[in-house]
């Protein structure tokens, strides 16, 4: 084990994978000289040179497009589009109409092994165009894989899995987690896509969550534990495909579920989970599945407003207490 921040873990994963596989390269805005907008490629330019750590123009759609073409031609590109997930709005055609569908449209010929990395979430006071959480969009698209790691070990282990996966992966990091430290295994530490992590066992209520909110749920579970409410915390880690079995098993055990994510609640990932649990485990539920997500507003700039826009530890605690 060694201790790394999420940013360092990603960087380590990129480095190891680029050493292992000459097809892997990183392409995006400012990935070179400054080591990436969020310092996730620090030192890689020196090690691999400007061909494989490739700075691009501010042309997000075509960054993804070039990744697709390179991937079809046998490479394994990892791309960054200016860092923020908000900018992936510029790439939806390439990502959804091209990358996600190419293999299917071509009748099973060709693969598109690309990883599109982006940072989600609020907390940095950058307002409405730099604070979104858009995983629900990608999750709605057959052909994509969507990953949302919350720890350094997962960030690295799932990044390796994403790079080795023959399909297009949207790899969603969180700005507030880049500097969070944690243990990372000394070997490759490969993780599997599609498997939730049970962060805590509990009996009264299940918290289903991912990304930054996995941490808030842990905090909330601590507080609730002190008040005698035992929470199980499931960190989904992958949103498409999501680990239905793990969620359903937990629902059948605790009979109560709260889904917590930072994205806007309406039409968010929580809705899919709630609806599925209802479909599959209706009789096991003692109460409706509760969803917590951002209020139905663009992210405001003012920090008080920003803080209250997304689920806080207090809101999670309150929601669980009402339920339990």
């Amino acid at each position, binding site marked *: 084990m060694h201790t790394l921040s999420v940013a360092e873990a990603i960087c380590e994963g990129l480095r190891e994978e680029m050493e292992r596989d000459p097809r892997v390269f990183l392409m995006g805005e400012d990935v070179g000289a400054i080591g990436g907008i969020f310092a996730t490629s620090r030192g890689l330019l020196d090690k691999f040179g400007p061909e494989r750590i490739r700075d691009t123009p501010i*042309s997000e759609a075509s960054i993804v497009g070039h990744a697709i*073409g*390179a991937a079809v*031609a046998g490479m394994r590109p990892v791309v960054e589009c200016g860092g923020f997930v908000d900018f992936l709005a510029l790439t939806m055609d390439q990502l959804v109409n091209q990358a996600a569908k190419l293999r299917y449209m071509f009748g*099973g010929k060709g693969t598109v092994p690309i990883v599109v990395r982006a940072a989600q979430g609020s907390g940095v006071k950058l307002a409405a165009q730099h604070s979104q959480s858009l995983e629900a969009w990608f999750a709605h698209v057959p052909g994509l894989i969507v990953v949302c790691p919350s720890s350094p070990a997962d960030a690295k282990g799932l990044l390796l899995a994403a790079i080795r996966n*023959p399909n297009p992966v949207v790899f969603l990091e969180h700005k507030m987690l880049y500097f969070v430290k944690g243990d990372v295994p000394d070997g490759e530490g490969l993780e599997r896509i599609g498997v939730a992590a049970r962060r805590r066992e509990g009996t009264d209520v299940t918290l289903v969550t991912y990304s930054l909110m996995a941490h808030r749920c842990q905090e909330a579970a601590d507080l609730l534990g002190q008040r005698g409410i035992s929470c199980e915390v499931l960190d989904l880690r992958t949103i498409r495909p999501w680990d239905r079995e793990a969620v359903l098993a937990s629902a059948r055990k605790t009979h109560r579920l709260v889904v917590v994510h930072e994205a806007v609640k309406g039409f968010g990932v929580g809705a899919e989970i709630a609806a599925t649990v209802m479909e599959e485990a209706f009789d096991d539920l003692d109460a409706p599945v509760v969803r917590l997500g951002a209020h139905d507003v663009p992210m405001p700039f003012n920090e008080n407003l920003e803080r209250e826009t997304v689920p806080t530890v207090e809101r999670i605690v309150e929601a669980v207490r009402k339920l339990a």
Partner: protein
Amino acid sequence: MTAAAPKSFEGLPAEKWIDLYTVMMRIRQFEERIMPLLKEGKIKGTAHPSVGQEAVAAGVCGVLEPSDYIVSNHRGHGHCIAKGMKTAEMMAELFGKRTGSNKGKGGSMHIADLDQYIIGCTGIVGSGAPIAGGAALAAKMRNTGQAVVCFFGDGGINQGVVFEAMNMAAIWKLPVIFVCENNLYALSTPVDKMTALKQLADRAQGFGFPGHQIAGNDLRAVVRATREALHRARSGLGPTLLECKTYRWYGHSAMRPDTRAYRQREEELEWRERDPVALAEKELGKAGLLTPERIGQIQREVAKEIEDAIEFAERSPDPDLPEMFTDVYAPY
């Protein structure tokens, strides 16, 4: 070929020219034959026939190496045929059959064959440009010597990613040839209303690489310009834009056969006069490469091939329903 036929023409072997002509004929007949089949409902959905534009597809693809990539657009049958796809597989695809190039799951707008280095047709205008750039980037990074041709129309040239891809190809000196088939209209919209340029080739000036306007119905001109651009590409000098002026004879698509709302009959007739197939016959005939007999023979052979392709397509089974669920993800 008569005894007096030259061994080569314009620096290419005589057989090459016969091949190119044959490809043009194959495209012509393929496209002409699918139109009634579309009307009959045997071919499903839509298709964008390239009749009138055969010299571009044949001339460009004809001088590529087999391992050079092409990325096509919605009007892509000709490109795919010229790059070497089997008309039977293409026809079966248009019929939506299991034996189609895409197992019946893609249809006209997505015909592709990676074995032939055809990254495919695409239904989103302009979207192929960065994908072509990416394939070129892979070629460059791996030093394979491959070039990549990106086909798009006079409409596609105004799509954001086409600009972006031109810029990226320019700065990275990617081995890409941007082939803009300027058939004067994007669906109903005349090209001269959609850019303020004297010629689309000048677009390249905004990026710092050469652009040339070419008589797209003149096989020889297309071949010549493509070879030059290929040379640039393979020498590491970067991209070229080739604006090939041409014309589509029919409607925009099978679903929109009518052109009268936006094209004059006179203009259509004028361009029919410049039939690229007839022009090639004349030129190659004059050069002693093609005789009327040979032309007739080729026409018959191609006609037979297309009939066989149709029969193959008709005979082939539909995909089974569970095929719906396969190929969404590559196994992992």
